[in-house]
């Protein structure tokens, strides 16, 4: 085995420029592939992560962006199977200029009962209670804006009457489902709305309920919708993962486009690699003949040539996959397109898969030229015009 490796490395150095160019091509393609594959994978993960939670999202039945009365929580809390309920009111704002949109999610203190899995620390809860300007920020948004805990900021609403609000970041939240969250106090938002002359209604954009157990989810969802039938604000209740899926589906045909692009990337790199393997084999044709005459079997020569392809793919793929992992393992936000929920993450498994694809592609690229070279009899190979 070791003897083969040594020979392969020797061979690879013979036309170093070609080897390097092929490796770089594979590295580039692996990088693109890793990132592309992560788009649908990130979308799936966001949904899947949420499928185990016991939460229900309640929207206005007419359309999800219509309001609901926040007081619905009082009635929902009394229903069997409901553990905790929180009303969320959104606020679209921008930071320093319009290209830095922030979506403020205003909630009450019940949030920590509805989202116990976010493990909001006791200190965070204390500081939120102390100052109404407190905000808790998702890790991806925090990184994107370059904020740190303790920062003071002023945000400006995008809708009329463009109210300005001041916040102090008191904590950050590590989570993959809502990494762009900007969590603020609802009483503060409501007071500011009133001070700016907006109607004094206790409106919520949606209401989030946590059920006692998984078996309570469906009956509770049904119960809530039935309870508010024929009221001024009818409701539509769905599970957290359905709600997220609904948000993600607004992106349109993204999934199909990404898969098509991946296929083209793989095909492109396959062609480039096959081309360079073909050139490599053509250079070595007489050499293969000599080895065959000396008594090397077809198998040994195949190991030698395929080994070279494999190692080029191994190194190139490792470079591309590692760079993708290194750049994007922390996640980047996909912007307003995902309603603030989405972020793109490259996980070690995805990088590893892409690496594997790179190796496979570069070995497959050698199939045709190498098998052709091995089928020629030594005598013919000598005679072949090179």
């Amino acid at each position: 085995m070791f003897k083969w490796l040594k020979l392969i490395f020797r061979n690879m150095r013979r036309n170093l420029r070609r080897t390097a160019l092929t490796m770089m091509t594979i590295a580039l393609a692996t990088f693109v592939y890793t990132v592309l594959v992560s788009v649908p994978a990130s979308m799936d993960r966001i949904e899947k992560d949420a499928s185990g939670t016991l939460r229900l999202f309640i929207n206005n039945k007419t359309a999800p962006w219509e309001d609901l009365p926040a007081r619905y929580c009082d009635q929902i809390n009394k229903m069997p199977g409901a553990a905790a309920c929180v009303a969320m009111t959104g606020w679209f704002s921008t930071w320093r200029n319009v290209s830095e949109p922030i979506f403020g999610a205003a909630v009450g203190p019940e949030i920590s009962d509805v989202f116990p899995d976010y493990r909001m620390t006791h200190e965070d809860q204390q500081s939120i209670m102390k100052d109404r300007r407190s905000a808790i920020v998702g890790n991806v948004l925090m990184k994107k804006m370059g904020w740190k805990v303790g920062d003071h900021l002023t945000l400006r609403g995008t809708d009329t009457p463009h109210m300005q609000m001041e916040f102090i970041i008191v904590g950050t939240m590590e989570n993959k489902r809502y990494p762009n969250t900007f969590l603020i106090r609802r009483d503060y938002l409501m007071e500011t709305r009133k001070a700016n002359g907006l109607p004094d209604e206790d409106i919520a954009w949606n209401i989030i309920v946590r059920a006692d157990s998984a078996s309570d989810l469906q009956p509770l969802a049904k119960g809530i919708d039935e309870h508010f039938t024929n009221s001024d604000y009818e409701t539509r209740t769905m599970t957290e993962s359905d709600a997220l899926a609904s948000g993600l589906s607004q992106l349109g045909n993204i999934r199909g486009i990404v898969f098509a692009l991946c296929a083209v990337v793989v095909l492109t790199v396959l062609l480039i690699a096959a081309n360079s393997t073909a050139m490599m084999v053509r250079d070595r044709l007489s050499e293969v003949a000599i080895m065959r005459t000396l008594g090397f079997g077809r198998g040994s020569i195949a190991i030698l040539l395929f080994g070279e392809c494999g190692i080029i793919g191994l190194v190139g793929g490792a470079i591309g996959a590692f760079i993708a992992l290194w750049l994007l393992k922390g996640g980047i936000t996909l912007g307003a397109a995902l309603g603030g929920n989405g972020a793109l993450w490259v996980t070690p498994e995805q990088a590893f898969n892409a690496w594997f694809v790179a190796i496979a592609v570069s070995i497959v690229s050698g199939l045709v030229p190498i098998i052709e070279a091995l089928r020629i009899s030594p005598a013919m190979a000598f005679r072949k015009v090179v």
Partner: protein
Amino acid sequence: MIPIRYNLRSLMVRRGTSMMTASVVALVVMILFILSGFVAGLRSTVLSSAVSNNWIILSRGVTNEGGSYISRDQYEIIKSRTQIASSPDGEALVSPEVVTGFNPAPDEPPSKVIFSLLRGMYPVGYLVHREMKVESGRWPAHGAAEMAVGRKLASRFHNLAVGSDFKFGRRTFKIVGIFSDHDSARESEVVTDLDVLTQDIHMSSGFQVLHVVLRPGLQDDFAQSLTTDARIKVDTMPEQQFYAQQTGFVEQLHRMGLVVALILAIGSIFGAMNTMYSAVARRTNEIGVLRVLGFSRFNVLTSFVMESILLAFAGGVLGEVLGIVVAYATGLHSQLLNVSSFIFRFQLTAGAFVSGLIAAIMIGGLGGLLPAWRASRVRVMDSLRAI
């Protein structure tokens, strides 16, 4: 200059390698081509919502229709402006409107649904948006719970056919018409009567946006008179400008696609370099002969760059043919695509053709330059000794 025929024949000799290199360029050009067709379709859908001489009025500092608010008082003040054109009946062409989200298929699972917009208008709105035409049925009557559906939305959702009922809010609306709007984004919207809609979405004190038709030549005058009036706080701009601002997200998509194409293009430059280097290595003695015949180093350099460009150009043409084939085969051209609430069509533009070919030439040129440089440095004596 070394005849081009020499390059063509050289490419034909290495048929297999030439084909593979050209195919790589073809794939990259195909991606670029499809991307620009996609973006062009989306952009023209958004932009064609605008009609010349039509202006839009939003509350000050707001960039979208949904976030704006215009009170009834402000509407009355604006309506009396003399710069506004009037209909043959003498009615001022001002269309107050309210938009809200619309779920065209409330019974489908949430992940299958694309949200659209429901626009409340008075009948004057159909005169203001002059390009909106009834394709079948009629417009909703004033005060009736009726809807007319945009052509593109109707072709996606068959439950929105003329004559069917649709439950929205607490009411059941009757679908009474299908309308077209020269392929604009409005064809993915639904319109209904403004007064009926405001009751359902709890907004009765005003409107969100005004669309107005101005008398030709009085645009500046109109804008001036709105900014100087202390009673109203609004922004006004031509519809063209407003919809151009709405294409920002298209640019974002375009840029993301371009990054992918660029990385692949670099990869294919490497591929072309590989091919050309091996071509140069193989033809060392030919280069020697050319030099002996009196061709200069510069001639050799340009000849090899030309060869690489020729190869890539062929790939580019192939890529565009491939792009068209893929566009039709996968139904991109006939099927309606959607991004967010915009339903649109793939569109082939002259720009896409030209930019694809330019990209191919760039790939060939850049990929061929270094190998050609090496070819031009070949020393005559050394190369002839190899024969």
